[in-house]
């Protein structure tokens, strides 16, 4: 379609929000525009010549677009861009900064399963999986993506408020010499040494 003269203010804060490599483009509406603004989205692989339109995000009124499918190869880097339309006029295309899924994603805490004897606790940790297109697709653990992935584990004695911290590479931990009949709170965090990525602690 021929380019209109674009006098509409630009969408703002165009950026990727990524968790476990589920990569969603977000932006804010142009300043001073009420309802009725529609958006189009395109993306490009850094180093490759063309912009590719995202059909599912053509003429949408929401301010996000899931580009996980298009940005799933984490050995590549990407740009995305958004354009706003209202009452026959439009804005410029507004781009993200360069997005590197490997370094720019956030990681969820690990899954923690705990079993106990009267004097010890056994903890098994499971790293989250990388985003996948469909449930049938083979799962990829973030452990495979980040070989340097470690776990930080916190064990709190709820009676004395004494806390122990452990940093482990494998996914199991046994904490011995505990007080029988005492409640302990176990929480764990993922720590990737490089690129530096830390999840929050599990609840």
């Amino acid at each position, binding site marked *: 379609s021929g380019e209109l003269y674009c006098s509409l203010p630009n969408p703002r804060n165009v950026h990727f929000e990524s968790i476990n490599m589920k990569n969603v483009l977000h932006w804010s509406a142009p300043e001073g525009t009420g309802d009725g603004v529609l958006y189009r989205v395109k993306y*490009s692989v*850094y*180093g*490759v*010549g*063309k912009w590719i339109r995202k059909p599912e995000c053509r003429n949408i009124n929401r301010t996000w677009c899931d580009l996980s499918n298009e940005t799933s190869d984490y*050995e*590549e*880097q990407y*740009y995305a861009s958004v354009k706003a339309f209202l009452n026959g006029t439009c804005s410029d295309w507004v781009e993200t*900064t*360069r997005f*590197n899924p*490997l*370094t720019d994603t956030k990681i969820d805490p690990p899954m923690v399963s705990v079993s106990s004897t009267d004097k010890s606790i056994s903890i098994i940790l499971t790293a989250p999986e990388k985003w996948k297109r469909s449930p049938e697709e083979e799962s990829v653990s973030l452990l495979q993506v980040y*070989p*340097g992935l470690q776990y930080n584990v916190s064990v709190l004695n709820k009676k004395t408020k004494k806390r122990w911290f452990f940093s482990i590479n494998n996914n199991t931990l046994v904490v011995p010499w505990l007080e029988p009949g005492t409640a302990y709170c176990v929480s764990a965090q993922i720590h990737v*040494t*490089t*690129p*530096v990525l830390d999840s929050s602690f599990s609840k």
Partner: protein
Amino acid sequence: KILHFGACRVSMSMTEIRAGFTAIKANIQSRDPIRTLSILSHPQSLHKVKSSDRCCITRHLLTFYVDKVFKHCRTEDSFVNRKISSIANSFLSARRKLGQCREQNNCVCGEESTEKFKQILANYEGLNVTSAAMKSLGELDILLDWMEKSR
């Protein structure tokens, strides 16, 4: 951190290098308006390099960054310049270590790696020096991701 390249092992302060680059990444990449060309990753991705060629390519790339990139990336921002020189010093040290390993004939260049490095140089020489150096610096995370991929 100890990185393994074939028979060669090189210790590099990857966390510091990464932190330094992360601090200047947005600044450096914003100085590179060319989306359609990559120095390191296209047309052929670094990730396609065979493991037997990793040592040679790494040695070439360390030399490439020391000789052709860092020195052409002076900016008007002293904070950015300090981070660049800190990264450059880490690369100099790593190159020296890898050079020592090479002297024991452990870092041989195969045809494929020579070809790959020629492609990188061709990409670099397709731009003027400052643009090429700034683009290469903006791709440092591509290099670090690849170097760390199979440590």
